[in-house]
């Protein structure tokens, strides 16, 4: 199924959860925050949150800024 991650289309298997998505993206263990369809997903729910077709995922981190 296709999902949108940080504005770019990605193909992932059906029933992929957020934790698995982060492994696919090689982001596991990184300090990040994530929302799906503008809903914040707490880290504690990464294992139990299953992606749906056409989900819009945003993954963010801290960078330099004023």
């Amino acid at each position, binding site marked *: 199924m296709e999902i949108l*991650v*940080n*504005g*770019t289309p990605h193909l992932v298997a059906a029933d992929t959860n957020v934790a698995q998505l982060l492994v696919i*993206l*090689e*982001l596991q263990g*990184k*300090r*990040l*925050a*994530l*929302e799906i369809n*503008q809903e*914040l997903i*707490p*880290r504690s729910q990464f294992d139990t949150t299953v992606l749906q077709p056409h989900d819009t995922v*945003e*993954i*963010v*981190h*801290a*960078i*330099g*800024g*004023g």
Partner: protein
Amino acid sequence: MQQDTLTIAGKEYSSRLLVGTGKYKDLAETKAATEASGAQIITVAIRRTNIGQNKDEPNLLDVIPLDKYTLLPNTAGCYNVEDAVRTCRLARELLNGHKLVKLEVLGDAKTLYPDTIQTLKAAEILVKDGFDVMVYTSDDPLIARQLEDIGCVAVMPLAAPIGSGLGIRNPYNILEIIENAKVPIIVDAGVGTASDAAIAMEMGCAGVLMNTAIAGAKNPVLMASAMKKAIEAGREAFLAGRMPRKRYASASSPLDGTFF
């Protein structure tokens, strides 16, 4: 002098200089300038993680560690309430429940002037949601008071537009805001050099937040050190209480005992 600290949301800081981490040439320079500034509260931006590119690139939090600094995630680039609130919630999750945020809701890309109406709305939502909100705003004393009434932990009027380096353009407004406030008033944005920071502190600001004045200097690390001293000097001058201005001279050496 007895300990003079800045208290924000119940936490005491010995430094009254707050710095941003944008516009440096690399993380080594960010680290060196931040350390030279002596700042304890450090702003960061929240942006998309790079995916599939430079995945081993060093992370800002490696040089600005959470155990050494108080991070102040900002909502820079947000032009509406929804984006600002979303950004703060993501930042809180990113930083393990950390509640301190810098709210800014911009109204115009040319001036980066704050949209104070949207800022008031966002502040209300964030305060209700349990955030400790340090809020970037215009130098309008009425808006500053309303932001304080909403429950913001610090009100941060601009000295001049973000990144302009013009110094305090409207000192009497800043003074009015300071005199009416019970929360710390921190000048945020627009200082250009050390004397601008000193002037803000001499006026009685609780602190100054800056980024470009340091990162945009030819030697950012040296400017960070200059800013640290300017903030301290300005603060001490404020506490000392300056002499009254007089129109005519007043001799410093006694006139008694002259032999000529």
